[in-house]
């Protein structure tokens, strides 16, 4: 089964990405995690996201486009990216999620992917 391991980070965590003193440790941890996923043969995709202030939320109201600056949900921790893993079951997915750097610094959400019919 495939699962998305979604990384939720606080503003301070997002700030470490570009902060000279924390940058190396921050990216190093995620790089090591990616490598561990690849080495175990469970990596199946994923992406990092720019911080939430770069986000735009959009919806239609009576056919008219409404646009709002910022992420949809105003919460302390925001989606920072996700890893897709291919593993036998939820227990194994949770073991990998527990090793994700964000499990110690923020929150990690694990959700199964819903495969869609190609045809």
């Amino acid at each position, binding site marked *: *089964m495939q*699962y998305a391991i979604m990384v939720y980070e606080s503003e301070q965590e997002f700030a470490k990405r570009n902060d000279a003193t924390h940058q190396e440790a921050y990216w190093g941890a995620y790089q090591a995690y990616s490598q561990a996923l690849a080495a175990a043969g469970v990596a199946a995709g994923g992406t990092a996201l720019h911080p939430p202030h770069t986000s735009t939320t959009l919806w239609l109201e009576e056919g008219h486009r409404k646009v709002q600056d910022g992420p949809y949900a105003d919460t302390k921790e925001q989606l920072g990216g996700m890893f897709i893993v291919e593993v*036998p*079951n*939820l*227990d194994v*997915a*949770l073991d990998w999620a527990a090793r994700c750097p964000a499990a110690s610094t923020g929150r990690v959400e694990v*959700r*199964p992917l*819903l*495969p*869609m*019919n190609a045809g």
Partner: protein
Amino acid sequence: MDARRAAELVIRNSYGRLVAYLAVRSHDVAAAEDALGDALVAALKTWPIQGLPANPEAWLLVTARRRLLDASRHSRVRAAATPALEQIARDLQTAPDMETPFPDERLKLLFICAHPTIDPAIRTPLMLQTVLGFTAADIAAAFLVSSATMGQRLVRAKSKIRDAGIPFELPAIARLPSRLEAVLEAIYAAYNRGWDSFGGADVAPVALADEAIWLARLCVELLPQAAEARGLLALMLYCEARHLARRSPTGAYVPLSQQNTALWSVPLLQEAEDQLLRASRLKQLGRFQLEAAIQSVHAQRASVGVTDWQALVQLYSGLVQIAPTLGAWVGRAAAIAQAYSPTQGLEALDNLPLNKIKTYQPYWALRGHLLAEVQQCDEARACYSQAIELSTDAAVRRFLTEQMAEC
């Protein structure tokens, strides 16, 4: 024997085994229940005409299995969503024949119901429904929520089990102790739910205490080397043995220390002692064995006439080390008060965090009692009235009101 009665008998004895077998092979608890329900309907139609099959249980299993296969073939979403469908179909087809007994998969089902990713509040209802076959309405009545709400929660939990890929296997050895603890806790929650409704206005239509004991027996039977499963069974048997002594003939609440030991059930106490002894031989001490040992000390009053409060202080002190629940801390304070002095008991209560004890009835009842013993009557009455407000059982409220009037 008519068809309906035969079907009822098979279901009563084998419901959980049939659901477990089908669920483990289809990875879908709700679909397994539906298929078994369909098979039952088919049985009630067919059996009166064609006569009872030689093996009614296997007949139901084969019929339900066919329904499951049909259902999974017809579900396009499922077909797209589960690459494992082929394997599941194969598993279902290679199921045992009519002659050989089918394997007991109920333990896997119990572990799935109490999986760490399932909301603890729904674990007990899930077990009651999938392993024992209770309807959502019966479970809802026992848990004091509406039938629709309970039904919805059960459906949601079962779709999580199906779609989130919770493994239908026994946990790995390394995880077994913590996973088993979750199973036992859910069973104990059913038992406490049964006690809470005892004699109250809201008597549960389901005899939850009996069902919890049945589930614990099942765990002991399926995992004979698990000391804590025996510990839990012993604990519940000790409590159950005192069932009759908990109320006076007029329905008044009788606290443990004043119960007539002649009313305690000797066979249940003996069985509890036996289970606790067997558990202790396995040399894996745990929370439920300690709680059972505490009950064992109380039970000894029946033979020696007095309670060994110092032994209880020791056992409670051990219990708060491994399972620091509020109940254990308050129990320890009560034992200290009896073994040494009410003042020392009050000191033990003083150390508990205020935000946690605010709504904990046993804390206020004990505090009221101990304050009354040291003649601090105003404070005692305030605690009693707090305890009365928090009591859900009318007999307990009456008892506390009388205690309050005496100080």
